[in-house]
């Protein structure tokens, strides 16, 4: 029994060390910009860089657009599959998993080939068109996470009976989606949204190859040319991701009607 516990603790400590040591190293390195003492100089340098503000702002905007478009597409789809087409679920689940096995590089080359300026839909010909294409790309990358989060949320409620109850009270489809289904899967939608946010903020391949001024390519550029700033940026990106995870927890905790489910 005692031996078992020793090995459990040992593997736990090894696991934590594997994740935490590089992080501590990065944080420590990011604070060593000033010779001989710790300082936040690298952070100030990064935050003061107009390119940081521009690229981070752009990626946040793209993340918000991706989340809105994703919710509009995925919530009704997952709802409809659950309500009317349950036999389609395995197929839809397979489709939602494809982005995990098809590398982003393949997706983006496909996009460039299909939507270049000489194609019938030349989206890459304009900045707005390319932004749209990038948003669709981000939607594809976040599809497995968003769909699963929403589907799990729908599983927790009796979709069919709630829909029928609302229908019998005179509600149409839009009212049912907006007032009954969405509020009850909001926590799940937000989980998916924060995951999407984290993916978009750190994404490099799509943005770089579509030549858009996103945060990922900026991270790469700084990493190639500076010493301490990349470490500071990595810590900032990490903090943003953790803040997203924390927000998921907070939203879940403060949603009154979900308290009973926890």
């Amino acid at each position, binding site marked *: 029994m005692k031996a078992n516990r020793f090995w459990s603790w040992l593997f736990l400590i090894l696991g934590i060390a594997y994740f935490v040591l590089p992080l501590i190293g990065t944080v420590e390195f990011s604070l060593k910009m000033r010779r001989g003492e710790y300082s936040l100089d690298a952070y100030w340098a990064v935050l003061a860089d107009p390119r940081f503000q521009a690229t981070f702002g752009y990626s946040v905007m793209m993340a918000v657009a991706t989340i809105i478009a994703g919710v509009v597409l995925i919530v009704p789809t997952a709802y409809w599959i659950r309500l009317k087409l349950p036999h389609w679920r395995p197929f839809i689940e397979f489709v939602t998993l494809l982005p995990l096995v098809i590398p982003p590089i393949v997706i983006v080359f496909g996009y460039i080939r299909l939507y270049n300026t000489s194609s019938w839909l030349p989206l890459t010909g304009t900045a707005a068109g390319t932004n749209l294409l990038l948003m669709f790309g981000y939607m594809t990358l976040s599809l497995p996470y968003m769909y699963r989060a929403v589907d799990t949320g729908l599983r927790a409620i009796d979709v069919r009976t709630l829909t*029928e109850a*609302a*229908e*019998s*009270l005179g509600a149409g489809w839009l009212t049912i989606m907006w007032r009954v289904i969405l509020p009850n899967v909001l926590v799940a939608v937000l989980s998916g949204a924060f995951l999407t946010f984290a993916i978009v903020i750190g994404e490099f391949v799509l943005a770089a190859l579509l030549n858009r001024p996103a945060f990922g390519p900026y991270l790469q550029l700084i990493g190639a040319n500076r010493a301490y700033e990349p470490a500071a940026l990595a810590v900032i990106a990490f903090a943003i991701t953790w803040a997203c995870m924390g927000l998921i927890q907070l939203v879940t905790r403060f949603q009154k*009607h979900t308290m009973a489910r926890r």
Partner: protein
Amino acid sequence: MSFLEIANLQKDFGGTRVVKDFNLAVEKGEFVSFLGPSGCGKTTTLRMVAGFEQPTSGVIRIDGRDVVNLKPNQRNIGMVFQAYALFPNMTVAQNVGFGLKVAGRPKAEIDARVAEMLEIIKLPHLAERYPFQLSGGQQQRVALARALAVRPQVLLLDEPLSALDAKIRVSLREEIRAIQKKLGITTIYVTHDQEEALSMSDRIVVMNEGRADQVGTPFEIYNRPTTRFVASFVGTLSTLEGRVVDPAAGTVSIGDSTVSLGYRLAERQAGDAITLALRPEAVTLGRDEARGAHLSGTIRDVSFLGSVIRVRVAVGSGTVSLDTFNSPSAPPPEPGDLVTVSFAPGDLLVMED
């Protein structure tokens, strides 16, 4: 013309016909129960009235209007589900007022109606609670208030008490019936619980394999079942195999005994096999000359049910069940005892196949 008319209703799922040529006319303010075992088509029929299932053929009219092609949200029906189906993100008051809000009623009217409904279900103090903060019985009362708040033309209840414990079930069924009578709302109630159907309904439709086997008042259904299925499904029934002795005189033999039914057995010949049935409460233990008919047999088993003792007596090839009151001063009979049971010949039911 009846308020709710269902004519020649049929429903197929795949190649299986689950509702077969169903006909029913319900008067305004009437409480009708669909009673039957699982899979008999009662819920499917109710869901066709609600609009959640499209009939394969047939007509459903509410107040003279054919509703078959109307969507559920256009039918003006109220529905209460077994699983309560309260919206988890809304308070009790918001749940009750949902239908009125959807209909675009003014806030003052919604507030007044919600207050009225919460008074009716005796839960005005729980208006701001969420569904997860309520017991099952309270949730179902809120679901009833929500369904009634929109003043539907027809109230449909799909096994609303099945998920509740026995004590709450009894009190809530009395409450539902009282509210239904007070509001005078036409109601269809689906249940597999015969006690619920018998105690609440103006009329009962006993369903079997997609068909309405018998439609009648609870008294008729219980005392004059017309089919073997209705007789066996509603209440406890002892069936006895006998033979016709004299069809004109209405005499039949059961085991070693001959019993006169007191009426002519039409379309039967002497020697024909006949299935007869008796309710436990129609039979007494011992020879009671006033009852007029007697059978001899051997006690097979005795079940102590508290205030009542159920005795099963083997008679010929069948078994007669009877109930006697428990008396602490008199010990119950023992299995193996030779006894006589008595009943009035008029209580003997002749079963049609």
